[in-house]
């Protein structure tokens, strides 16, 4: 039941991604630095809603992709336990809150920045994942499409978050700081099994981080509306 719903929504999202792209265009008001009001962008609340929707969709599609990959390529003994998160993720070094109490203690700004960090750190690995998946012999098209979609959506999500930061925090752009830190290492082509396990790890980690993004953004939204009862 849950899988079906997620799959349906994922398909729906895949179909609608051009709309999301077009929707994301007016968000780009970077060039006009001093004139935020001149941007024909949407209001902050709506923007935040859209960003949250993006994050939700990304999470669902990534969950489906992970399941697909796991079923196709991962033998049973190596599969993650149901309770288990993943192997070591690339983003473990990021200073992210890891409990609700911690999140309650950090500020909006830091929350947004956390999201941005996450998004930016995953853009490259997803592109890499796309290339590796193409090398698979029998990777289903659905999986490829989903991963492709996710990577595209992530870019638009990044744009949205940047605009949000600008709007909410009145900050300038600090866009490209995180992705250049080389979290991801491009190694020599590993062996097959290692490659598969690495991809599997990538996918599972990304799934978790997508959920983090979604949660942060939702908490942020709650703080916007009702500061005192939110986390």
């Amino acid at each position: 039941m849950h899988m079906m719903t997620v799959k349906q929504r994922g398909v729906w999202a895949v179909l609608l991604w051009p709309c999301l792209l077009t929707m994301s265009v007016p968000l780009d008001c970077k060039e006009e630095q001093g004139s935020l009001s001149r941007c024909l962008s949407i209001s902050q609340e709506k923007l935040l809603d859209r960003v949250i929707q993006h994050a939700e969709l990304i999470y669902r599609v990534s969950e489906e992709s992970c399941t697909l990959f796991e079923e196709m390529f991962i033998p049973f003994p190596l599969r993650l336990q149901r309770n288990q998160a993943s192997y070591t993720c690339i983003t473990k070094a990021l200073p992210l809150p890891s409990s609700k109490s911690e999140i309650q203690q950090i500020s909006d700004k830091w929350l947004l920045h956390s999201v941005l960090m996450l998004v930016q750190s995953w853009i490259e690995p997803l592109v890499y994942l796309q290339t590796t998946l193409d090398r698979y012999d029998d990777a289903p098209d659905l999986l490829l499409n989903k991963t492709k979609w996710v990577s595209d959506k992530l870019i638009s999500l990044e744009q949205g978050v940047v605009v949000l930061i600008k709007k909410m925090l009145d900050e300038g752009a600090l866009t490209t700081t995180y992705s250049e830190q080389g979290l991801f290492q491009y190694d020599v082509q590993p062996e097959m099994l290692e490659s598969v396990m690495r991809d599997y790890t990538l996918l599972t980690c990304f799934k978790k981080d997508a959920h983090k993004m979604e949660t942060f953004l939702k908490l942020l939204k709650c703080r916007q509306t009702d500061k005192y009862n939110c986390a």
Partner: protein
Amino acid sequence: MMKKVVAAVLLFLLLFFTPHAKATRYSPPGKPTLTRCRSPEKETFTCWWEPGSDGGLPTTYALYYRKENSDAVYECPDYHTAGENSCFFNKNDTSIWVNYNITVVATNTLGSTFSDPVDIDVVYIVKPNPPEKVTVAVMEDKDWPFLRVSWESPHKADTRSGWITLIYELRIKLEGEDEWEMHLAGQQKTFNIFSLRSGGTYHVQVRCKPDHGFWSEWSSTSYIKFPDYFHREKSMWILITVFSAFIFLILIWLLHMNTHSLKHCILPPVPGPKIKGFDKQLLKNGKSEEVFSALVVSDFPPTTSSNYEDLLVEYLEVYVPEEQELMLEENKDLHDSFLKSEVSTSDNDSGRGSCDSHTLLIDKCGEAKEEERQTDQEESPTETETQRHQKDWDEDPLTYAHEDMVSPDMSSGRVKTWPSVFSPLPQYSLSPLDQTRSLVMAKQHCLSDILFPPGSSSSYLTQPSTKEALGPSYRDFCLSNKPPHSLPVPQMQARKQLQSHSDVNISSIGRKQAPVGQQSSALQPTEYVEVQRVNEEDMVLLQPVMSDHGCVEGCPQTHQGENYSKVKGVTSDNMLLLQREVIEEEMDRFPCEDLETSGAERCYTSSIITTTQKPTGCNHTATPVLGEMALAASGYVDTATMSALPTY
């Protein structure tokens, strides 16, 4: 010394404990297993384990965990909140998106045993509490009420802030059934259920699940009784029932209307016996001898004369062509009904239109008539049926022939024939004949008209009247003119052709009657027309015979005035009741031809009232007039006296 004491004590202790050790096998504890870890709201979580064998010794359990990215091992902070063999991690100790490596250790005096480690991430072990405050209400929506189920998220789960996102699912079933109907409600907290059975009691349950966790338990059952409502389907069924009942009634009615034809189809009527002389009543009485004796006909084998009678068929439809003049002759046989139509040929064309034309049989009939005339004349008025029928038929063959000839021409159905006006007007006689092409053989008795005896004062014209009024009574009218005899007398009347047309709507049922014998006789103006027997209520028109002598030419006009040719009825003594009639104009035959309706005055012969007939020529004429006269004149008139009424 001390050492010895210590050793002794030790030994003593050892001895003391040894039996215990031997009695119960002590062993290190068995391996515990972590059964599950659950977090109800993604903020705290609990782990439960299953202890192994305790080895007979008191065993303690300890849970140790290690977070990812660190090697520090921590022990479970709370062993009691969650119950036995559990470890509760509160908010401060719970980290999300972090892998926990948890191990349980069982320890007893003999040793300790480690369980298998378990990796968990709190995010993935969330199993919320069931939804709370589930309410089910019936929403009235005109004729289509539905159920609205509403609930709230479990109070611990922080869905408001978005910390946890729950999706809901509910299920419903009718009381007494086993199958649940599942509905996914998404993230909404209300749900409408439609298409429920009216009057049923339903059980409703709700559960929830985070987008990355386990389904909660089902909430407690809510009961709702659906109200009774008049389902539209029922009304549709009622409509269908009424409609089919209606159609059924129509079918029954149609069936009833066509019962007769259906009966004929399914149960064709049994034809009755048509043996001449066969009496059903006798048969019913059961006296067979009488029955069979009745069959014996005295004149069997049939003589020539009776030949014709035998040839008589009950029903004969004779269509008299307009050109023909038919004379009806008496029907001998009472039982047989036949129509004798005598065709009188009139050589005199005066006053004759297309209506009037000679028939072939005129000549033939003439001979026969001659003989008959005189006898008939006398007899005719008083003749009863029997007498009538005893008219002999020399002319029979002719008449029959004529009849036969005529009959084919007759159209089926009733034929109106009326006796031709005989006496004074040749035309008169002609016209009706012309008009009436059809002869209908009376079922019962036909009146045979006989030529007027020359000089006979009475001529009777038998004309049925008001047949229609009386119903299709069959009458025979035979008018016979006996031109030869009457020639001398009725010369004033040129050929008078007696046209006997039976007014009677004699419908032939397919039985052909041998023509009674039509004698065509030249119409003589004053001729007696013998009146055949008439059924009751038949009207016989008798035309008084004019004192013909001087009436050669003026005779036609003599017709004006009263006409005793109408017979009101026949009494049981075989007495004719004649009626007076006044016929106005006899001259014109022509109008007769065209006339289908009244205007009948013109045609004498049309004294006959034709009712149901298709108008055949001039059949109907003078009906109104005659009618009046008929009504006016009533009473019994002796034909004998008729002759004494020349002035009429």
